[in-house]
């Protein structure tokens, strides 16, 4: 706390989701960019209160699905009619119909990978270390407390002003988190 370069951010604790949401609205309006709200469950309306845009996970999932669909057909076509042609009952070597179940499953599988791994990628998870996870008080974030953190690296961060802003939101506790 004494050395500002060692500090990660200013952490404010709230006991209800409504208080944390009002605080988020204030910080959003004050124009901060490197800040976050930590809650034990997703609070509805918090995305708006923080001014977050719609999540981009859907695009990852869509690209995964499109890849699965294309790769599925290419795989079956290559394996059964190019690399190792199998004649079954004198039928054409390839048709879009018979591999459909396989392609369908590949589409779903890769969409699911897109959703999960896209989510992890956007969230930069897994992360083996986070300054907040060293903080004893922060354990409440997965239990029943709500936290707002403004990082010291935020361009608008000035300790006295930021502290004042957080105090005006009526938080129950405030402390500086070490990096």
């Amino acid at each position: 706390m004494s050395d500002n370069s060692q500090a990660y951010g200013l952490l404010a604790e709230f006991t209800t989701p409504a208080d944390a949401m009002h605080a988020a609205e204030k910080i959003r309006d004050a124009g901060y960019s490197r800040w976050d709200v930590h809650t034990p469950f997703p609070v509805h309306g918090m995305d708006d209160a923080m001014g977050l845009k719609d999540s981009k996970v859907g695009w990852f999932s869509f690209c995964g699905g499109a890849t699965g669909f294309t790769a599925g057909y290419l795989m079956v076509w290559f394996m059964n009619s190019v690399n190792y042609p199998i004649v079954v009952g004198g039928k054409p070597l390839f048709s879009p119909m018979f591999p459909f179940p396989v392609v369908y499953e590949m589409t779903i599988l890769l969409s699911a990978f897109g959703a999960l791994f896209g989510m992890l990628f956007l969230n930069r998870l897994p992360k083996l270390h986070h300054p907040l996870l060293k903080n004893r008080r922060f354990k409440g974030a997965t239990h029943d407390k709500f936290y707002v953190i403004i990082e010291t690296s935020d361009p608008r961060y000035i300790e006295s002003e930021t502290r004042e802003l957080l105090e005006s939101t009526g938080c129950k506790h405030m402390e500086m988190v070490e990096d």
Partner: protein
Amino acid sequence: MTIFAVMCAGIFPGIHVGRIWFAWWLFPLPNANGPIWPQFRSPLLWDVFAVSTYFTVSFLFWYMGLIPDLATIRDRCKGFIRKFAYGLFSLGWTGSNRHWSNYEKAYLLLAGLSTPLVLSVHSIVSFDFAVSQLPGWHTTIFPPYFVAGAIFSGFGMVLTLMIPLRSIFKLEDLLTIRHIELMCKVTLATGTIVGYAYGMEFFIAWYGGNPYEAYAFQNRAFGPYWWAYWIMISCNVITPQFFWFKKLRTNVVVVWVLSIFVNIGMWFERFVIVVTSLHRDYLPANWGYYSPTKVDVLTFVGTFGLFMVLFLLFIRFLPLIAISEVKGVTNQADPHHPLGGAKGGHH
């Protein structure tokens, strides 16, 4: 539950390929036998894809749902090993709202993707039978019939497992009578669909005018395996009809006992479909009477053991009820509710 059941189910094809060390031939893997690949026209291969995708997506969905709860346990558990293990598997989750925003979207997508998967996996399993030419298997009703049967037996099994856990762990306020009642209604609806499918199979066997098909069904109900057929009918069609009565739906002991009958009935359905069609096919010289060997029975008993081991380990080490999801739907979690800290007036 799905995951553990699929693991158990995976043992059987493993045994039934006969030469277990060639089980990897099921998958289109590059190999040193020249360029040689599986034959994608076979429904058995479709099934390989359906079941493995089903398992993978269910597993990811399950794990993803656990991440925030693993973080909760990480922050509350004691002891180095636990802290380390839960910390590792919770992937550094901090409950950040920027993360929740992506997480919720991904979770919604996974839920949406799992739903058609439930339909497809059971449809494709039914293709294993329906695409063959054996009387009693070669029917177009199989996909919807298997899907209804799967939902029916799934709900039956969940009731069987949930009702004892609910009283052992005192979860009456989370798993309420209303939940059980609604599950009974789904069981009733799907059980009745299954009953309709049984009736329709017989109707088409007669109406279709195919003598082999007609014989297969007569043989099913009145042949040497008549007992299996009528156990199936009474457990699957008659048992759920008790759920028409609210008094029975709200009595957990009755529901539990009936759910056991549902499980027995669905086991017999598989038995009836597989055995009655196979034991008398087109060639009377091949006709016989199948009775399970000791190995058959013990393999089956073994799957119960494997399932219970996995299930009990799950209960022991992981949250039985999704913690963050239950928190999220309470009034205390709603920022627009007085209990959630909203002060006067509406937003």
